[in-house]
């Protein structure tokens, strides 16, 4: 029962809920981390469920499917009823900005999943959007991750002219949020120092301290493998979901999470090559059509490595456990950044 929209998770620990249909108690590592969950306001889930049910089974007094809560986190709650998914956006979400982001999703069928209603609803003080259900990437089979589809969808998104009133994409803001949480919760951890050092060496825009250098390119803002669904389920084409961080900005940010995983030695070279090649073949503008893509990717990939490391350290501290091998690899990459000056994209770009 995957969600049709992935809430941003500034809580530095919440794994997106990716239970597979008919597996209410998944044992996937997605659930391996204990993570703090602040209960949503008592009545939000019933109200959200009622909303989803009303949309899914309009005109029927009985519900044939049973409801499922897909995610319940302080920053977002997602429930499914039949073919309909209702998402309560994080408290404090700007209604005008969300409406503009939603309008982009409505206007880009074939790239982004289209919402069922063009405007968010107000439900008990939370903004709620309704989506059709889509089948997500199988979290138990990450080898089946659709790298080519993800890259092609991003290239098409980046080539789409952005509406003039669209707010900036929130990638750097999310990274800054993760670093703020690291400072607040885990500053004494030995891994915090290299992570913060790498963060402080980033250009101001990548730390969300100044406007993004690109204010025209349409970006997703939070790409990962939980942000793709097949619609119509279960075998329709892949589409991007989650518009919460969508906006105008530096398109290399959307490539930078896989780039960071590759750089940290976590994503095998062939999977990175498949992703990058598909993006280039689809005419994506974030990197030059050939040659070394790293002058364009360097800053965003550093920022996302720092963000990932900051969340990993905060999670480990919260759980009272040491960093695992993968988390340590990301922290080690932050440590190495201190010895290598940032690449200068404008001087290297071909």
């Amino acid at each position, binding site marked *: 029962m995957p969600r049709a929209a992935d809430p941003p998770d500034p809580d530095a620990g919440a794994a997106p809920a990716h239970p597979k249909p008919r597996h209410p108690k998944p044992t996937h590592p997605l659930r391996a981390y204990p993570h703090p969950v602040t209960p949503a306001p008592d009545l939000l889930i019933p109200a959200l469920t009622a909303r989803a049910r009303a949309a899914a089974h309009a005109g029927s007094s009985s519900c044939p499917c049973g409801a499922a809560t897909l995610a319940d986190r302080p920053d977002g709650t997602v429930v499914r009823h039949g073919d309909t998914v209702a998402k309560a956006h994080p408290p404090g979400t700007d209604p005008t900005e969300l409406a503009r982001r939603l309008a982009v999703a409505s206007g880009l069928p074939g790239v982004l999943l289209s919402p069922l209603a063009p405007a968010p609803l107000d439900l008990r003080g939370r903004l709620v959007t309704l989506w059709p259900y889509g089948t997500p990437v199988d979290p138990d089979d990450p080898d089946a991750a659709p790298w080519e589809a993800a890259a092609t969808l991003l290239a098409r998104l980046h080539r789409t002219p952005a509406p003039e009133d669209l707010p900036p994409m929130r990638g750097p803001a999310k990274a800054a949020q993760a670093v703020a949480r690291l400072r607040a919760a885990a500053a004494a951890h030995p891994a915090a120092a290299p992570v913060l050092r790498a963060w402080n060496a980033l250009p101001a825009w990548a730390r969300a301290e100044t406007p993004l250098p690109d204010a025209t390119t349409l970006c997703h803002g939070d790409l990962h493998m939980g942000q793709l669904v097949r619609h119509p389920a279960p075998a329709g084409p892949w589409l991007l979901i989650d518009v919460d961080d969508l906006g105008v900005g530096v398109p290399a940010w959307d490539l930078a999470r896989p780039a960071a995983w590759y750089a*940290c030695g976590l994503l095998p070279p062939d999977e990175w090559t498949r992703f990058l090649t598909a993006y280039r073949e689809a005419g994506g503008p974030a990197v030059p059509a050939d040659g070394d893509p790293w002058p364009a990717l360097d800053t965003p990939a550093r920022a996302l490595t720092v963000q990932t490391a900051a969340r990993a350290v905060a999670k480990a501290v919260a759980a009272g456990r040491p960093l695992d091998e993968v988390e340590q690899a990301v922290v080690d990459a932050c440590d190495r950044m201190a010895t290598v*000056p940032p690449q200068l994209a404008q001087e290297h770009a071909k």
Partner: protein
Amino acid sequence: MQCPKCRAPMHTYNRNGVQIEQCSGCRGIFLDYGELESLTRLEAQWSQAAPPPPPAPQAYPAPPAPAWGAPHGGHGHHGHHGHHRHKSFGHMLFSS
């Protein structure tokens, strides 16, 4: 130009394609805007190039990776995270 420190004349030299001014008196060096960055970049390229390339040619050369990348994982097929995906990375693939 004149040295801002000791007022002796400064002479222009070319170091790896970067023009730098050096004082003929105190030997201090003056860099124009961007020149320090150019030198730093050259230095980084030099240190990247320092380890000798692996002698065996690869059928599929590994794609480029940044200098801060993992020593092995980003550059070949022998990364210690290896062929079977670590559970924790499986989680990371789906996380913000």
